[in-house]
């Protein structure tokens, strides 16, 4: 893999970006996310978080299962403010 590898599609973060930030001492997904916005786009990390967790596990030489996942926050899927505003009254 010589091309830049995009690891977070929503926020355009490359694998190299992530590796560099891990080297700088960001050793949790929460910290990585706040450093570069990985996993903060419309998909909310569904695609990239498992991949980044693997990278973190590799760098820290521990099983992926031991990497603590970041908080999952509502809503589960993107929903428009218009729909939410109408939501308080029944159709």
């Amino acid at each position, binding site marked *: 893999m010589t091309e830049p590898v995009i690891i977070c599609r929503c926020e355009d973060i490359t694998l190299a970006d992530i590796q560099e930030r891990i080297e700088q001492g960001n050793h*949790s997904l*929460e*910290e990585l996310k*706040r*450093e570069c*916005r990985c996993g*903060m*786009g*419309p998909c*909310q990390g569904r695609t990239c978080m498992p991949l980044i967790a693997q990278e973190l596990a590799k760098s820290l030489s521990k099983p992926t299962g031991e990497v603590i996942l970041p*908080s999952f*926050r*509502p*809503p589960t899927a*993107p*929903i*428009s*403010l*218009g*729909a*939410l*505003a109408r*939501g*308080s009254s029944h159709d």
Partner: protein
Amino acid sequence: MIKQADVVIIGGGVVGCSIAYNLAKAGAGQVVVIERGYLASGATGRCGAGVRMQWGTETNCLLSRESVRLLENLPEVLEVDGDIEFKQGGYLLLAYSEKMVAQFKQNLTLQNSLSIPAQWVTPDQAKEIVPHLNTDGLLGATFCPKDGHANPFKVTSLYAKAAAKLGVKFYTYTEATGLSVKAGKVAAVHTSQGDIATNTIINAAGGYAKAVGCMAGVELPIFPERHEILVTEPVEPMQTPMVMCFYHNLYCQQTPHGSFIMGIGHPDEPETFNIKSSWQFLSEMAARITKILPPLANLNVIRQWAGLYDMCPDRTPILGQDPTVKGFYTAAGFSGHGFMISPVVGQLMAQMVMGQPLLIPINMFSADRFTRGQLFVEPSVV
């Protein structure tokens, strides 16, 4: 872990990091920051990221004016590389009642006397500034073009980087578990990683400041209050200023990233450490914002979260040394506007600890104002 330090700061939010940098720069010796999560993991990283100078008291105007001056060139000021995403798109404060108009005009006189470039705008002028603003019922607004946005994580990490360069030691994932006070003087901080002997402790623990005060036998009237907030998907730039409204108790801005961040204050929110999100917030926020800024109805909400305001009864922070415990300083109780004044708060706290003359007189922020009954009420808070 280090065994002894000249100053120990409890709390690695933006306030703690700014104080650490300023102390190290002033030559305070060995400065240590204790943070129980990672830096900015508490209120700092959860805040609305707004920076404004439009306040109703002279001191708050001065604190924010001087802070904006620092934020304008923060990487140069701190001599470290980085970008804090500082954008001066202004703040538009909406007035919907005669009482609010009177208060805003009074605030403007004060702000202008302190060279803060805020001005009164009519509903039509407000619409020129924010074309998608619904001006129904709007009596006018105040606008300060130099207010704006900065990234709280980036500001904190810039201060931390600059502080570390000057020798400040940071212990993250380390919790303060107790304090030792001997003969009315601070003696040590006990943490989950060991004890640190010190004669000076700075309580910058935000919503947990009261608990830290208790460890020193000091009663601080600071209580935690949940505030909820949400962010939308990023879109092309369409809204330059932060739109804020005390009447609807809300704020909404588009960040340089393109996403909209918005929040509301809830009058019935109890004193609590709860930072869970609620579905009621989503529908209330959506209902209120789509009335004021109708086209935002098309935007998708992608995430909501909550954080704690460290509230003081008069919505003004406590800054200074405790009158009964020597060496115990508090910098907390910011009531929702700590991030935006943190650059100057760091300078002032360092000046206080070092016994230097203060940049801005802030005696009215001392903790004993509550026993004297001299509250210092800030009228302009969401």
